């Protein structure tokens, strides 16, 4: 699915990612944990194609394609999804309209016809119910005056409606209370299958109690310093980043 080799990234001359390797296969859930400033969010932006980041070295293969050559929207329409740490507000654009536009952009890219209005309404309703999102909220402007938790739920709703192949969750757990965390995690778990993959970026082990990863990676200073299974997350919780990074 995703093969990152020797990735080096800088922003405005400052080196952020310094030789990162990561391989994610179909059906796998990987967790990426690390302290502030270790390069976690940079990786999510580089994968989704945000500009301003300079790729100094390395390759990223995504399902046989050179990911770095694809535009932001091409990556999205090829099934790469980023659940944002800070979802953007778009005033004047109704949430449901935004969802419809996103779905139809993907269908257009794939050479399919637009989704029928009724089919769309049904899909949105069922997915929103799963996430405990009210229909009233779908009528509001996208993310405008949403609480932090509502914004994160909205990201997961978009994800479940677009059913991506490769989903990156960038600190989706931050700002969530315990109920919202459970609902969001259930939403993610429902999507998991043998065909798609997840990269879950987080500070805390807490989220991984709900979304059980197949692999856990610890990133420090732009590199993956340790990889393991779920038990690594528990070890991390106990010892802290500093000790784990040093022993690596």
């Amino acid at each position, binding site marked *: 699915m995703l093969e990152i080799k020797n990735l080096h990234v800088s922003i405005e001359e400052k080196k952020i990612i310094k030789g990162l390797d990561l391989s994610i296969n179909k059906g796998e859930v990987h967790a990426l944990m690390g302290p502030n400033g270790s390069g976690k969010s940079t990786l999510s932006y580089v994968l989704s194609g945000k500009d301003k980041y300079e790729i100094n070295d390395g390759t990223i293969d995504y399902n046989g394609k050179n990911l770095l050559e694809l*535009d*932001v*929207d091409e990556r999205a*329409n090829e099934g790469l999804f980023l659940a944002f740490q800070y979802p*953007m507000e*778009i005033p004047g*654009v109704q949430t449901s309209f935004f969802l419809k536009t996103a779905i139809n*952009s993907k269908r257009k890219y794939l050479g399919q016809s637009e989704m029928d209005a009724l089919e769309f309404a049904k899909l949105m309703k069922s997915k929103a119910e799963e996430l405990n999102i009210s229909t009233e909220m779908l009528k509001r402007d996208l993310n405008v005056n949403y609480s932090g938790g509502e914004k994160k739920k909205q990201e997961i709703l978009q994800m479940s409606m677009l059913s991506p192949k490769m989903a990156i969750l960038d600190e989706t757990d931050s700002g969530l209370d315990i109920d919202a965390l459970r609902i969001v995690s259930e939403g993610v778990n429902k999507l998991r299958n043998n065909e798609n993959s997840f990269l879950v970026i987080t500070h805390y082990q807490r989220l991984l109690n709900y979304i059980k990863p197949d692999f856990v990676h610890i990133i420090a200073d732009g590199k993956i310093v340790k990889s393991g299974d779920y038990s690594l997350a528990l070890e991390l919780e106990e010892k802290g980043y500093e000790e784990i990074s040093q022993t690596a």
Partner: protein
Amino acid sequence: MAATEQTIKQVNTLGSSDYKYGFSTEVDEIRPPKGLNEEIIKFISAQKDEPEWMLEWRLNAFKVFNKLPKPQWAKLNIPEIDYQDCYYYSIPKSLKDKPKSLDEIDPEILKTYEKLGIPLKEQKILSGIAVDAVFDSVSVATTYKKQLSDLGIVFCSISEAVKTHPELVKKYLGSVIPVSDHSFAALNSAVFTDGSFIYIPEGVRCPVELSTYFRINAMNTGQFERTLIIADKDSYVSYLEGCTAPMRDENQLHAANVELVALDNAEIKYSTVQNWYPGDKEGKGGIYNFVTKRGACRGKNSKISWTQVETGSAITWKYPSCILQGDNSKGEFYSVAITNNMQQADTGTKMIHIGKNTSSKIISKGISAGKANNTYRGLVNILSKAKNARNFTQCDSLLIGNQCGAHTVPYIESSNSDSMVEHEATTSKINEDQLFYCQQRGLNSEDAVGLIVNGFCKEVLQHLPMEFAVEAQKLVAISLEGSVG
């Protein structure tokens, strides 16, 4: 609905990604020589078989025009206009003898309107919208006439109204925009060619949208639209106009005068979707759109609401205004003005509060991209008799890129201590993070800009009649194509 969907489909199928109405139609024209003089005015009047009083009115306006300087207040770079190097009248030969039915109209002209999404043939006419189609200097056809006349509503070309309803024309023409207002107003009064005339009788609520579609086709020809709408006591009408022109290298002039009169308890809702050819990326060609639109709320409790979506034209100079004479009368102005590439717009409104308890609301959204300049210019004037007058103004500007300009020039004059005037203004740049967010959801950069800008304009667009709102949204997106990336 049909109208707009068809228009959109037409727009989409016309291919070229830039200006999608840029085709021209091959028709034989009747055109007097270039130049502006009394002979030309007499020619126009004779072509229209006008009564003597109308010709006198025109000739008087021409005398006034010759004495007036060009208005200078706008922040626009307007090249010197050579009025002698322009044709003032052009009509397709086939329309000279006033076709009695659509079967007699040149099929090329009918095709033009079909291409634009405005079919005129009986079996295809748009449901819920009566259309008057103006081609260069003449009205081609007006649909739904019979149904409207059963209600006593008059909806015809102004040329026809001069002959059929001279008493109304004499009473109201020039009563809102005096001939001597400024030189474009005087010029229009001297050489106006066609436009619509609407009279809604007392107590009648017009059941359909009335609409005019203006098309400039002939080269080097000015279009001088004249529209007059009168809503008698307790009546209501919603009117909308659309405008397009072929792509041509030289500039063309569209100088319009539109007058609205609302009597006691009457309401007029006037919407414009202006998409004249804007010129090419280097600023070559395009329409000079010098428009004077003014409504008089003469009666008590009357209301006039202007909604405009201005996306086209090389230069837009336009200030749809309300004179709030009647007590408790209301004026509204909702505007979206988009300028891209080398386009210039100086647009806004004047709200003149005269009567007691009059209120006005101004919502203006200016979007500027490329090297374009976009100015909001507005006047809120509260006279001493206007006890308890209220105004709320909100002007928002959005910049795309770093070579364009947005300017806000509000004038507020209040001679009354009971009045309350509020003004809010914002200027912002299109947010890169918003664009990235939309693109991460699969929208290409142009669709992303379209979506965000449409959101920015929503407060205005929602005031358009449903049928036109969808078209306007597409237009907003199309007119910003190429502005990012």
